[in-house]
């Protein structure tokens, strides 16, 4: 039975991306097409970086954002989303979460990490900040769901900002996620 997909904000609104990061004008079609084709309901999560560090933010790694203030901000957003997740879980809906791999906030299986990064930005393109693990918002969302006794939904990260992005492989992983 189709369920409810809670998706990263930027997958419906690429305008929220860090400058240089928007892959399309607005809606990321590969995800929406797959969800629509399978009859899934779409629920958009907020972008934690947009309202905190703004549209002019630099690309950042997890360590740069991992302050107590940013954690509180992510917790506030995640608490609101967990409320909506709870509505659907209590109703018996199948719920999945789709994040953004490579993101310091929305990463699911891959985040970005560089403990030394800071100060005047001058790092070269292609520096190796990608790192296994989840982003800060995803960690907070997982924690809030657990506190509410909600079993962790199935998750995946869209890979469109990773250097080895393979659209066909991404679609296969999405299909596997939705099929459970």
């Amino acid at each position, binding site marked *: 039975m189709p369920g409810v997909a809670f998706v990263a*904000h930027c997958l*419906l*609104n*690429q*305008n*929220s*991306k860090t*400058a*240089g*990061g*928007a*892959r*399309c*004008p*607005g*809606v990321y*079609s590969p995800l*929406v097409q797959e969800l*629509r084709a399978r009859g899934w*309901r*779409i*629920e*958009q999560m*907020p*972008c934690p970086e*947009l*309202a905190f560090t*703004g*549209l*002019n933010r630099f690309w950042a790694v997890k360590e740069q954002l991992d302050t107590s203030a940013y954690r509180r901000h992510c917790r*506030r*957003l995640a*608490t*609101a*989303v967990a*409320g*909506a997740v*709870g*509505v659907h879980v209590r109703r018996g809906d199948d719920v999945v979460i789709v994040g953004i791999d490579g993101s310091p906030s929305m990463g699911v299986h891959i985040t970005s990490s560089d403990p030394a990064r800071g100060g005047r930005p001058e790092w070269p*393109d292609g520096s190796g900040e990608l790192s296994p693990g989840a982003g800060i918002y995803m960690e907070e969302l997982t924690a809030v769901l657990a506190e509410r006794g909600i079993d962790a939904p199935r998750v995946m990260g869209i890979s469109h900002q990773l250097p080895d992005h393979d659209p066909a492989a991404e679609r296969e992983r999405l299909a596997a996620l939705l099929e459970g």
Partner: protein
Amino acid sequence: MEADARGFRVALVAGELINPPDGGVDALAVLEDEDWGAIQLPAAEYPADVAEPLLEQAAEQAEEFARHGYTLAVVGHRAGLEEALGRHGLETPRAIEPSSAEELRTFLGSLAG
């Protein structure tokens, strides 16, 4: 680095038009075709204690786009939106409750500049 492809146009969209019933207006499909992004507003079916913080966050995000001169629009009705936007110093952008995809497409086209 790849070129940034953003459209600089963002619509605040009622949840019922992101997930329309059979035969309803699929606003997301139109936005996708017209190169707009979407900020989803909570559907009316959510209880107030769930919907209100989500609505507040939508307004907070809209403020950041407004501050940077992005074109904003409202698609569909969401109770409390005007007040939420007002708390962030925003007037309600031009709005439509579309009865068809074509009507929405025409409306968005009129704002595209």
